[in-house]
């Protein structure tokens, strides 16, 4: 089995649901990557970004403020309080989603380090 089923849901609806290669999650005790066949795990998430590698090899980024992730061998479920998918068809759409992602993270996290890391990540994605 070399694909994972990832679902990201928030109280406002489903943000993401697809088969993926792997995902990196901002755990409360540090970032962790999940590949297919990962041991079962329930983890608290802190404000940060979720880096998703799609089956096509493309990357997709979703910013979350707080939540839980449930991982097992073949699927990952993220229950987030708030999440913003970064991306869009045009430059301006990407820029505005970046801004809302930054705001989301800053509004929730009280740790400067977390904010700084998340910001740096978002910005590096934006440049890349």
């Amino acid at each position, binding site marked *: 089995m070399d694909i994972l089923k990832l679902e990201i849901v928030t109280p406002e609806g489903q943000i993401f649901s697809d088969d993926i290669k792997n995902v990196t999650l901002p755990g409360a005790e540090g970032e962790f990557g999940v590949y297919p066949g990962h041991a079962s795990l*329930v983890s608290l998430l802190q404000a940060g970004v979720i880096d998703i590698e799609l089956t096509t090899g493309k990357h997709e980024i979703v910013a979350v403020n707080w939540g839980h992730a449930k991982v097992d061998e073949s699927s990952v*479920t993220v229950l987030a309080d708030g999440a913003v998918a970064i991306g869009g068809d045009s430059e301006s759409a990407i820029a505005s989603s970046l801004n809302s992602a930054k705001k989301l993270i800053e509004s929730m996290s009280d740790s400067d380090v977390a904010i700084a890391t998340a910001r740096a990540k978002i910005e590096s994605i934006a440049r890349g």
Partner: protein
Amino acid sequence: MSNLKEIKRKIKSVENTRKTTKAMKLVSTAKLNRAKLAAQQSKVYAQKINEVLSEIAYKINQYKIGGIESRFFDEITTPKKVDIIFVTADKGLCGGFNIQTIKEVNRLMDDYKDKKVKVRLRGVGKKGIAFFKFQDIELHSSYAGVSSAPTYEKAQEIISEAIEDFKSGVTDKIILVHNGYLNMISQELKVNNIVPVSFPEHVESDSKSLMELEPEEDETILESLIKKYFEYNMYYSLIDSLAAEHSARMQAMENATNNATERVEMLTLAYNKARQESITTELIEIISGVESMK
């Protein structure tokens, strides 16, 4: 002549009622669209969090992991005290919407009474509260004015006390009853046993491994997840109930408007008949008057 006036007055009154019911229908339609959207958006999250929790419950029971707040997951076969939280609307004029919920609560209460289980009621929504007050059935706590404008904070407030009681062992089970939204024309009564968390005999996922928790040094993660689970279920009940209320009212008002229209037609017919009758009588009187003068 007085008959004519009487009918005219009736027509006017029915027409006024029709105007009101029509306006109420339009208002409900508009509100329904908003409430429906909110309910649909939250549905995914509610489903997911329930799925996650039931899987955790399954695993905890499967592997008998000690030390975790297992009270939330242990299926209690003989509960001693049950908390029933029901959600009704604050307003009436929505057909059988409220009474369906109330009936179900009554049925549950009778069920538990037969089993000698104490039942405690927590009511949300003026209509349900008023009903049980009238029946002289004591409500442990009641929350009016929440149903028409539910927020997450209010849901937290309602459920927090129930959780505390459950945690400290005062109650053994919490049941959530509300009339939920199914589609534009029908509602579905939903009875949700929120704790102990129910789980299927076999979880579909093929994961066999033990579940790890992170951070693992304490139970905060499970606790926060459980808290979220409660609050979200409560919140979802509230908004689902609101959507259902509007759909029920829309339908009830639609029916009322149709009935009023029918009634106006009937009355108009009666009015015309009476008018013709009076004209005929007058004519006869005049003619016979003229005849007698010859």
